[in-house]
């Protein structure tokens, strides 16, 4: 029956659909808001991760989140997200992208308290969990699988399987979004990192080429100092540094290091301004700057730079000893050795070995630190 004012269609289904979409949107936005907290100290990130789990446990369909590698939810009861006099919010199905987004945010926050070596397993667990929930691969799942591959690279795994997965992701995004699509850029950057970590044959040159392509694409699209462009510029300089470190010809090495220093100093200055001098990405750039000074033989400058890095890392990390601070200790050991202070060098390399072994005992960085420790111990 139609009237002049009311539509004929049944309303409960429309209303239920609207309410469910609204519940999913709330979870989706909560995931974004919680991700903002990743610049807070570790303890607060842990709380944020568990709060995300509480939202999932309360508003998403029932699931064994432990099997997805996620932490337990916060113990205390959740506040009612709905204003008074409103019916209870519907349950969001696990197949809704909002659930995966929130679970991903929870894992991102949770992973800061995990050792780098343990992260790939947890990310893989999460990806498997959703692969089983979803009947076909969604865009969100593809991005999650890309995240698994990146975590593996960061833990030192550059096996053909990982490289193939990253290449396939890049091809997929190239086809879907074009050469300059945002996701294409992220995938290209991830592949560049993987080549740099593997570092065999033409890998370093390929890593630098991919990073340079990404810098060009992002500069055109967003401008040179956009945070997204800065990530690409930072990757590019790191590729240059690693290439320079692998060189034996001093003149070529110097030329590359000089280029890297100019670039990374600019990146670091902008990051200091945008994120603050103690932000993890700014301190990372500062450490790279020190590596350029080391290559140029300016060890006093490198030492000052690294001591600042260490101080800022401790502000950002609190009691937690991050893998990155292990790398800073390693660089300080190299600098002190070059400056002839073997006592300090030994002190720093011991710290580096302890921290890096704690995070990723099989990683390249831990191996380098162990080699330096052996060298310094035998000469003292």
């Amino acid at each position, binding site marked *: 029956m139609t009237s002049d004012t009311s539509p004929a269609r049944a309303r409960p289904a429309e209303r239920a659909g609207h309410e469910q979409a609204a519940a999913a949107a709330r979870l989706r936005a909560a995931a974004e808001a*919680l991700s903002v907290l990743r610049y807070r100290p570790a303890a607060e990130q842990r709380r944020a991760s568990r709060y995300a789990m509480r939202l999932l446990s309360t508003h998403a369909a029932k699931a064994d989140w432990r099997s997805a590698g996620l932490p337990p939810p916060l113990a205390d009861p959740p506040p009612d997200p709905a204003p008074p006099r409103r019916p209870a919010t519907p349950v969001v199905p696990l197949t809704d992208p909002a659930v995966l987004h929130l679970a991903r945010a929870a894992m991102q926050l949770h992973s800061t308290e995990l050792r780098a070596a343990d992260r790939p397993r947890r990310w893989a667990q999460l990806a498997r969990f959703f692969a089983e929930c979803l009947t076909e691969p969604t865009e969100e799942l593809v991005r999650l699988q890309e995240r698994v591959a990146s975590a593996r690279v960061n833990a030192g795994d550059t096996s053909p399987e990982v490289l193939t997965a990253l290449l396939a992701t890049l091809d997929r995004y190239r086809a879907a979004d*074009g050469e300059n699509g945002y996701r294409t850029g992220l995938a290209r950057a991830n592949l560049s990192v993987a080549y740099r970590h593997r570092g065999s044959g033409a890998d370093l040159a390929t890593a630098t080429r991919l990073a340079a392509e990404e810098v060009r694409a992002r500069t055109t699209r967003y401008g040179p100092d956009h945070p997204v462009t800065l990530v690409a510029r930072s990757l590019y300089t790191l590729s240059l540094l690693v290439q320079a470190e692998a060189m034996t010809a001093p003149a070529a090495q110097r030329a590359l290091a000089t280029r890297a220093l100019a670039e990374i100093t600019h990146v670091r200055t902008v990051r200091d301004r945008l994120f603050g001098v103690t932000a993890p990405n700014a301190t990372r750039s500062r450490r790279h700057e020190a590596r350029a000074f080391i290559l140029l033989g300016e060890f006093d400058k490198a030492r000052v730079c690294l001591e600042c890095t260490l101080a800022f890392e401790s502000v950002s990390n609190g009691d937690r000893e991050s893998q990155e601070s292990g790398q800073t200790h390693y660089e300080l050991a190299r600098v002190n050795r070059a400056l002839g202070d073997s006592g300090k060098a030994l002190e720093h390399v011991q710290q580096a070995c302890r921290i890096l072994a704690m995070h990723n005992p099989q990683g390249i960085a831990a191996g380098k630190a162990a080699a330096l420790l052996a060298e310094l111990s035998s000469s003292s």
Partner: protein
Amino acid sequence: MSSIRHDLDVTHTARWYEAARNAQRSGAWDERVLCYAALSEILAEHRAQCPAGEAHSQPPIRRPGILTEVAHRAHFASAEPVYRRWRARQDGQPIVRWAGEDAAVKPSPAFVAEAKIVAFWPYRDGVLQVADVFDMTLIEVAAAYLRAVATWAGEHTPLAACHPAGPPACVIEDMGVLAARIPPVGQVPPAPGAARLAELAGMVVGHVLQDSSITPLGAFNTVRDDVLRLLSDPADSVADRVTRSVAELSDQLLHQVHDEPIMTVGQARQILTALDGLSTLLSGIAGGSAAAESPR
């Protein structure tokens, strides 16, 4: 920052939304929801028919006579009852239109503005809930809010592109609430801050419409610098200022070009003496467990 939440709960739009969804009027609300859903369907079909641009960019969408289409799609017997809901003269409508009684606002734009607000509202809710629980700073609230705006635009792209393309109108109001908390610098009023923040929200949506593959973080990053500049507290702690100054001074010294004067010998000695004294004082604090209580 719970007072931000309180202020955002009592904006004109927040009060309108709460009243519109009031249980006693749920029948009227359901009919509105039906109209919004019909609009989304029409726009989605329009999008499917038009080829996407590079990186799936979404050009602005203009559909003259959209309310007639909506009435037809939602199976109203005629278009008139739909127009009546969004006319300036409300004539006893159970839910007043969001745009108020301004006759200059025609029914179609009034309807589209409302549809955008209603689609965005749960995203806003989700952000404010987290902001409240974690006592977010002003900058964190702005970042979370703008990321939610980007998420909304990514998930409701045709609606975001619907003329006038851009964020929901309530964003301007909400940005006004945030801008009112910008630490005062001299006698500068908050109004320019509100307008600038709203403009940045528009840029965020613009980036999403330009490249549908951009993430909410990526879209927010396009305006991060401006947001920080607008909302940073100029009167931050002396410890923060010293940290920044020390970093700046070491940078200048590290990258000093020959003959470029940075300081006199006297100044260098003076700083050195001050730093020696300060080191002694700081070691008393840093020796304990202070590192664990690092400020945000």
